[in-house]
């Protein structure tokens, strides 16, 4: 075979690979949406699941997922910002910083089930909190934090040195410079990253089976007392999230329409992820436009 022929053939193979990957995604999304969307209805989205009868919904699970996401972000965002500021602004190049960077890397590559088991041992059993939203939120925080630190660090690093120098030259303290000059400039990047991270938290299941639990008490959506056992906003109650529910329905679901429920719930999860993804792109562009007045 001539060299030119080989080149042509290779190009063809690379095109094939690209189409295969696009085909995989299109197939995945198409399959999940086609199978699932027909099962999604208002009733499905708000009503509680049934164990042995058909027609159960995913209301509490959907609420749990959103509430858990909110709790996790409440803990993750400030600590992640702090960690990112440290890595970008205070860490001096050297062995300690290299070690810390490795720490972030190791934490972010821990299997989520290992983090979940750690949560089971420490938050559920040793601390006596039991299966609860709070235990789940801390477990999620552990593997969302490294991501948040990295997002913040990268966004801060992208801000030009001149901006820092100008602020320092005006006599502002280093911290004031970070808070009122560097951080605002990095905000679009941080927000985009945070929304993408939220999408990941939303779909997480392995760590939650052992921390937030696999059941939800019957919730009374008129009871907003955070200390009451059947209140939706009580952080100390067990909470099965949407992703955990999909796993449970698939592996031990007894309802006659278990397959449909799994399909519908998967479609809801995928649509949520798509929304997170699109919002992240859109919000990032929007804030950038507002802050810089560019088009």
């Amino acid at each position, binding site marked *: 075979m001539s060299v030119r022929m080989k080149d042509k053939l290779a190009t063809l193979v690379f095109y094939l690979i690209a189409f295969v990957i696009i085909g995989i995604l299109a197939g995945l999304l198409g399959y999940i949406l086609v199978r699932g969307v027909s099962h999604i209805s208002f009733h499905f989205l708000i009503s509680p699941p049934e164990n042995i009868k058909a027609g159960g919904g995913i209301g509490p699970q959907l609420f749990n997922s959103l509430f858990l996401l909110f709790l996790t972000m409440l803990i993750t965002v400030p600590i992640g910002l702090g960690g990112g500021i440290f890595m970008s602004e205070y860490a001096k190049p050297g062995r300690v910083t290299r070690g810390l960077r490795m720490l972030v890397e190791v934490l972010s*590559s821990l299997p989520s089930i290992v983090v979940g088991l750690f949560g089971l041992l420490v938050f559920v059993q040793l601390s006596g909190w039991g299966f609860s939203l709070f235990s789940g939120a801390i477990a999620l925080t552990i593997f969302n934090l490294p991501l948040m630190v990295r997002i913040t660090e990268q966004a801060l690093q992208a801000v030009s040195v001149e901006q820092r120098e100008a602020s320092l030259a005006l006599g502002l303290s280093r911290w004031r410079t970070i808070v009122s000059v560097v951080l605002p400039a990095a905000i679009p990047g941080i927000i985009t990253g945070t929304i993408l991270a939220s999408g990941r938290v939303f779909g997480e299941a392995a760590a939650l089976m052992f921390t937030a639990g696999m059941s939800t008490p019957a919730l009374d959506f008129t009871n907003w007392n955070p200390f009451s056992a059947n209140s939706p906003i009580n952080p100390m109650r067990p909470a099965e999230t949407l992703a955990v529910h999909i796993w449970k329905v698939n592996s031990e679901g007894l309802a006659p329409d278990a397959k449909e429920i799994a399909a519908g719930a998967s479609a809801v999860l995928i649509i949520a992820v798509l929304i997170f993804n699109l919002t992240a792109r859109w919000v990032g562009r929007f804030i950038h436009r507002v802050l810089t007045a560019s088009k």
Partner: protein
Amino acid sequence: MQHVPKEQDRFKRHHLEELTGKTFAYVSIAILLVALVAITYFIASKGLSTFFKNDVNLFNFLFGTEWSPEGDMGKPSFGAFPFIFGSFAVTVLAALISAPLGIGAAIFMNEIAPAWGQKVLQPVIELLVGIPSVVYGFVGLSLVVPFMRERFEGVGFGLASGMVVLSVMILPTITSVALDSLKALPIKLKEASFALGATRWQTISKVLVPAALPGLLTGVVLGMTRAFGEALAVQMVIGNSQKLPESLFDSTSTLTSVLTLEMGNTIAGSAHSNALWSLALILLVMSFVFILLIRFLGRRGQTHER
């Protein structure tokens, strides 16, 4: 005369501000350190008690093939080899499919059709990252498993199904890391190769891929890290029988799938429970090993998706 105390005030405020901010940043990063130390300590202390308290022989644990922790027939035995084998097998198989596809896609995006690749393939890769693992499990269960059952021997649940599901899951990781490392190559390499009259394929295969090899391998190892630790999607399709698989299409278990299924049903402190913690310890140690491997491949300062 009033000027002096004012200056001092500002000086003081300056320092207080700086101190508060610094403390905040230091405490935040310390929390990460505490988390990792605590995870390592607790998992290790629980996982090691199998060998120190329950007197299970480490060699028998790692290489024994009989797993009956409750001792249903006589003495309990803790042979975790089938799970260790299952985890490694499914990880390596997934990487065998995903590595060429992922690296190929990265080359396509960087060398063959950059504009098109960035516009179409980039969002595709990002979306694939975002799909939750239970959804992969669901699709595996309702598409891949029936397909395997119809086309090949066996019940459909097994190594091959796990391999297919995992290979799609780790594809984006491999692609994005490979893409970064190709992008980081100096353009001169390509120019020099073209100037010598090499074709694009010759340039890619003889110059660019060898030059970017450490980065490409890093991507593959990161993908394997993810595959090794993935729990639910694998559990849903691999069949979970507690024995060594006899073929690609035979049902088996992984470390994560056993943990998923059995951890909820054991009594804390029992030998069975401790043995499961030992499996978790193996997972933890392996993720350290993968990170060391990545370090060894020599890409410092770059960070990636799990």
